[in-house]
């Protein structure tokens, strides 16, 4: 892989904008197209691109499979936990109106929080599945590129 300098330079240039774009899609989902599902996939793609070019070990160093599993479960817990919190605050399960004084604000808070949970789960799941596949594969031979 050492001599694929174009691939390495281009992906190094591309990965930061991809991550930024994922965050934009995540937190701009209330205003434009997008949301947790799309943002999670785009976020995962940045890491997958990194793993494809620099090797799977370089990625699992920062994101070990165990951490990915914990993150994906945390996302589900954030979503489901929001419902429990709204119940404890006296509203229905996932009835966000209890989260703030006036309903539109409370709804926006609720949506932002559960979308973070969605994004976290989707990103971690996509990366975990990719790592599960890729760590079984022999590294791609140079002549196969």
């Amino acid at each position, binding site marked *: 892989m050492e001599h694929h300098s174009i691939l390495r330079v281009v992906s190094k240039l591309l990965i930061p904008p991809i991550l930024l774009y994922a965050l934009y*899609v995540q937190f701009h*989902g*209330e*205003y*434009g*197209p*997008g*949301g947790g*599902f*799309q943002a999670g*996939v*785009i976020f*995962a*793609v940045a890491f*997958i691109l990194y793993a*494809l070019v620099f090797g799977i070990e370089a990625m699992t160093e920062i994101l*070990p*499979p*165990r951490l*990915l*599993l914990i993150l*994906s*479960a945390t*996302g*589900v817990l954030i*979503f*489901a936990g929001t*419902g429990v919190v709204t119940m404890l605050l006296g509203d229905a*399960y*996932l009835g*966000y109106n209890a989260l703030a004084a006036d*309903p*539109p*604000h409370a*709804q*926006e808070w*609720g*949506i932002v929080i*559960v*979308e973070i*949970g*969605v994004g976290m*789960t*989707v990103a*971690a*799941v*996509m990366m*975990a*599945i*990719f*790592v*599960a*596949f*890729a*760590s*079984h*594969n*022999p590294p*791609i031979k140079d002549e196969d590129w």
Partner: protein
Amino acid sequence: MSAGLVGIAVIDILLFLFLVLIAIAIARLRNLFAIAMLAGVFSLLSAGLFVTLDAMDVAFTEAAVGAGISTVLMLGTLALTVREEKPVTHSPFLPLLVCAITGAALIYGTLDMPPFGAADNPVQTHVAPYYLEQTPVEIGIPNAVAAVLASYRGFDTLGEVVVVFTAAIAVLLLLGGGGRSGRHGKVAGERKKD
């Protein structure tokens, strides 16, 4: 018919034409690598179709998930298995018959559907007007899709997230990629290579 509608019709026809061509190519090819890439192109064209239907959120998801990540996962699967499809040994007539009958039944089913885009379709008169009218009042965010997804239909979305999580659990159970079992799996894989 206005120029805009003609333009959309031309784009729709072109997109559907490409979809059919890609489907035929996928059916005829034996190289699974090429098939995986063509499936990605198929998803990207479908995303284009969703854009012409003004379904931006769906198009976005289709482009990111269908064309992006599934292609990568498909290629990962190919690297685990083989790159060439096995030659077909059975006669193609029974599958062709099944496809023809299913397709005919589906087309027959569409005859009962309300006209495409009509204002009095059930989809336009059921809960959709309520969501569109009340989203600015009750939720206060501009994107009605996000409001329906995360608030009005929050239970469904929670279910979807659990499904995605379950997919990861299933893959990790099958391939052994998570945490301690992952390291064991890797050691076993390395031993096999030796």
